[in-house]
């Protein structure tokens, strides 16, 4: 197989994967925050908050990520004028567009991934046996204490594995940003396929192994942590 395209200065393979890493990093932080808020709403005693969080999760989770990401660029920005980057005069317009599309993609990933984070956290809370909370209430703890001292510490341990799965899926999902022209691995692969069509197998091996390298350590490391942290019952 011919891997000569790797040393071709036209194709920045590492830079493309670095873009995936950056997309994953910012989206993961945002999704964790929004997802935790949504999960909190879903177990709260206020029916309206529960209803809102449930509706949000069921609606957003069932829309394809592709549709959400393209909506960010074409509806939020082009139609409604949502600007997440500032345009400095005299600068090449592409610089503004790159920053803008990157941030729009991150926003889209956050909105989508937070629904899965919320479900993971909720399922973590569900693994704590009801007797734990009942016993905590029986000795006179308040709701915040029941949640903070008894339920959450146990739920957090059970939540590591599903959250790691969400993180791996997010890493792979960042390829959808190619739909709005973010220069990441899938877009680079597409360019390579057009220019170096005869080496398509080598191109596939390189890009695919790149994702194996990105996702495998997350799975092994967090899988080990989750295994160690699980509450043995």
């Amino acid at each position, binding site marked *: 197989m011919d891997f000569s395209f790797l040393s071709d200065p036209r194709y920045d393979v590492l830079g493309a994967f670095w873009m995936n890493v950056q997309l994953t990093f910012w989206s993961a932080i945002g999704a964790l925050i929004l997802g935790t808020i949504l999960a909190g709403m879903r177990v709260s005693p206020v029916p309206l908050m529960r209803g809102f969080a449930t509706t949000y999760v069921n609606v957003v989770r069932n829309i394809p990520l592709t549709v959400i990401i393209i909506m960010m660029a074409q509806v939020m920005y082009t139609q409604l004028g949502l600007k997440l980057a500032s345009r400095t005069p005299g600068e090449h317009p592409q610089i503004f567009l790159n920053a803008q599309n990157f941030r729009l993609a991150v926003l889209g990933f956050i909105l989508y991934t937070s629904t899965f984070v919320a479900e993971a956290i909720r399922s973590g809370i569900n693994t704590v046996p009801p007797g734990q909370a009942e016993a905590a209430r029986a000795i006179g703890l308040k709701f915040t204490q029941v949640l903070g001292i008894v339920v959450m510490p146990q739920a957090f341990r059970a939540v590591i594995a599903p959250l790691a*799965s969400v993180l791996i899926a997010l890493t792979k999902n960042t390829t959808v940003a190619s739909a709005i022209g973010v220069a990441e691995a899938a877009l680079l692969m597409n360019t390579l396929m057009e220019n170096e069509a005869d080496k398509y197998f080598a191109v596939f091996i390189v890009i695919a192994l790149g994702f194996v390298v990105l996702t495998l350590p997350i799975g092994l490391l967090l899988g080990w942590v989750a295994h160690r942290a699980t509450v043995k019952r």
Partner: protein
Amino acid sequence: MTTNVMYDHPGPRARMRNLIYSIVFAALLVAAVWWVIVILADNGQLTAAKWKPLIEAQNWTTYLLPGLWNTIKAAVISVVIALPLGAILGVARMSDHGWLRWPASVIVEFFRSVPVIILMVFAFQLWFSLVGTSSPLAAVVIGLVLYNGSVLAEVFRAGVRALPKGQTEAAVAIGLRKTQVMTNVLLPQALTAMLPAIVSQLVVILKDTALGGILVGYVELRRAAATSASNYQNLLPTYVLISVIYIVLNLTLTTSASVLERRFRRGRKGGKVVDAAAVGSVVGEVTGDETR
């Protein structure tokens, strides 16, 4: 754990507090909705000219229905191929023979960790060099089958593993062969337990058909809708419409599955249910499957 075990039945003060929270939250919601409406109106998105094309018959027959049909076609073909492939790979991974187990494990682990869109772009080129014609449908189907076949293999494996050990032991004790143990005893029982996980994978497949519209040029619902939107100059209404279509399709799938599952389980004694989120924990490893 259901939420109501976490707090006591609300007394007068707690009810008052919850009421205040409700009112504040409702006010915030109303303000947000009002803000969205103002933004939409300011950008001229609420005019009849923008929304009328959604009920025009020509728009549907020219763009939306053919797109929807392509989406469903790709999803159904992928499911029909991926299910048996997943069963074969899953059984192969549980085989006693190393020469069968190892290749199956490598295939499953590899295709699960590669993004579907990468598989589609590769499949497009592969099909072109092997067959000589370009076929976006083939690229989409091959990409979806490789990924979801591998995920379903894990679902099957988790389903069989969740069965009580006594089932295998009893089957072996009455003299069944290994193949018979699997096909006559384990798989039929595992299938009911796996139903929820399989259905959530169907939802994933349906949603992932939209990836075919990005790089390999398959004209599924989203891509067809984009053409329609640029024709009628109504991006926002069109994207709202296709989002609703996807939500309705996926919710129908999920709801009918839970009805089916309840009917299946009636009269059976328990048995664990494998849901997508639990696959990782049953198999004992971290996967990235359920979010796709």
